[in-house]
């Protein structure tokens, strides 16, 4: 059973994950989105580091440090290179759904995820603590972002946010899945991001833009 202070710090980190997700929905500058994603990476890495320090487990802390390097440094850097490749478009273009409507949908998604998280949280520690619900909300918000943003980069940010949320849930529930799976998952995310980066640049060279709504060659 986690101690009181630990619960508070874990909840704070989970809250930071959710807050950055909401801010990503709000902001449209691509650079700001990458910066927020970096902050989210720090909040995510805090989860295993806090738990590792409380339990005095060096293994968890070092996993946290790997997560920190990957999600708060390497992946945002890969994305940032894509932003500098943008000569014309540094902003997300005309939105599919307006900002206010997006934030309303986000609020609905948060309510939904709290409802969905209840049986999971109960099984985890027998409480109604909000942490799992908060991080599950990040997953839904990420899906929503990917569905409604037009730029290739925004979709990549959405994907990384989705992955942050899933990793966050793994840390909250189980102190992370076994190391081999966590490593495999991290490597996969790294590769997907690199692939998205390369494809994104190829798209820009070919289409002169990374507005994915211009991807209209293929349809029935």
């Amino acid at each position, binding site marked *: 059973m986690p101690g009181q202070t630990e619960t508070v710090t874990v909840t704070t980190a989970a809250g930071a994950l959710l807050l950055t997700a909401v801010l990503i929905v709000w902001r449209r500058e691509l650079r700001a989105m990458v910066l927020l994603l970096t902050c989210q990476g720090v909040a995510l890495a805090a989860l295993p580091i806090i738990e590792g320090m409380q339990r005095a487990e060096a293994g968890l802390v070092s996993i946290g440090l790997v997560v920190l390097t990957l999600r708060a440094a390497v992946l945002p850097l890969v994305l940032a290179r894509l932003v500098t490749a943008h000569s014309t478009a540094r902003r997300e273009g005309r939105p599919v759904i307006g900002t206010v409507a997006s934030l309303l949908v986000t609020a609905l998604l948060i309510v939904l995820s709290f409802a969905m998280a209840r049986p*999971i949280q109960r099984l985890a520690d027998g409480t109604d603590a909000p942490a799992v619900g908060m991080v599950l909300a990040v997953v839904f918000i990420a899906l929503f972002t990917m569905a409604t943003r037009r730029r290739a980069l925004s979709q990549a940010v959405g994907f990384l946010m989705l992955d942050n949320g899933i990793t966050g849930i793994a840390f909250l529930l189980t102190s992370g899945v076994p190391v081999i799976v966590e490593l495999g998952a991290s490597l996969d995310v790294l590769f997907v991001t690199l692939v998205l980066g390369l494809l994104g640049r190829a798209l820009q060279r070919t289409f002169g833009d990374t507005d994915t709504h211009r991807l209209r060659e293929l349809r029935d």
Partner: protein
Amino acid sequence: MTTLLLVLPVAAPAAAALLAFISGRHRQAAMAACAAAVIIAACGGLLAVSQASMPDHAFGGLLRADALTATLLIIIGTVGIPATWAGIGYLAQEIAGGHSTPRRVRWYSTLVPAFLGAMALAVVSGNIGLTWAAVEATTVITAFLVGHRRGRAALEAAWKYVVICSVGIALALLGTVLLYFAAVHAGVPAEHALDIETLLHHAGSLDPAVTRTAAGLLLIGYGAKAGLIPFHSWLADAHSQAPAPVSALMSGVLLAVGAFALLRVKPVIDMAVGTGFLRGGLLVVGLATVALAALMLVGQTDYKRMLAYSSMENMGLVAIAAAVGSRLAMVALLLHVLAHGIAKTLLFLAAGQLQHAHGSTAIAAVRGVLARSRLIGVAMAIGVAAVVALPPFGLFGSVVSIARSLAEARLIWVLAALAILLVIAFAGMAERTVTMLLGNPDPDAPAIAVPRSLATALAVGVIACVALGITMGPLGGLFAGAADIVAVPG
């Protein structure tokens, strides 16, 4: 011995990939890839022969050998052999036509065997976390194969493919994490909580609410990789833009590997939350997929997209068979996957040559194929007859068995809806194929070139297709063994 048979299917393609990357000579690389496919099939065959000692494990449960593993290895190898061999001719044509650079040829030759290796790893894995990582690896590896031809359409297809499949597979990871969490909570030691064997033992004590959420996520997630609704939209784009041999591999086996990942965990979920939950989900998803594919087939104007939607139709059928879950349905499912894989390989390879000749994938551009190239025409005719489940091909047998199992399970309304949809799909595909094959050829229609490697691959495929229609042979016993592993008891 089992350890060797489980490691070789991954090690051989990995070695072929390394060789291709170092040498960069596409002929040797394609032969090495083909040899790797032969090894995968052979390992599957040998595992099938030693079925008595199954299930067997290696590396403390990380790898697992049972009848289902053997079946999937045989399917991957059987589709892989013609698809990799045809790669020789495909690349030679690309190089001769000035469509490819040495760098792209090298990547193609490296990524194709790597793709085979990742799929083999997914099926020999006994750990659902490792299976997940391998399935995700197939996405990363095939991204550049889909975009191989460059150009707007190919890049667009590659982008959509990576984004949609990565999201799908991320949801499957969340499902895997939740299942792990439920297992740890049920008292399973953490280091074995992802092993399928351990999960099966403790399935009864998993928390039902958490397992249901996990099951829903796994269904949607791996469903994306299997081409099922709602994350299906990458399929037609990717299949139509990828090089022909890659389309054959994606349609023939990648979809099957996605379905396999779901089948692996299905018994655990069925035991934890009852059989009704996944059955309902699979029925809805399967029927919706068949319905969408049938509608798309009717109005189709592009022959590669037509083949892609036919793959969706068949994967929908696989989902419905999995929903029924009886032993008969599962044997039919496995036969369906193998027969579909072989027939679709024939079709995509033939379609690749038509595209090369005409520079277009429009159905309207192609007439009188049978008169212009006997081999391509015959391969297409047999392939289409097989995938629309005409007798005497394997898919006829599997579809009839799936229909019978639906009737036995008293799912008459599903059977009725399915029958109507299959007739619609049949009409759509048959009409288009007949005009392509038999219509009067344009007097100045381009000649259809058939490289020797492709002719060999097509001949092998035709023989396999016909043979599987006549008899399952020794595969019958293997399929029955594999069906017992995943079938709903009782």
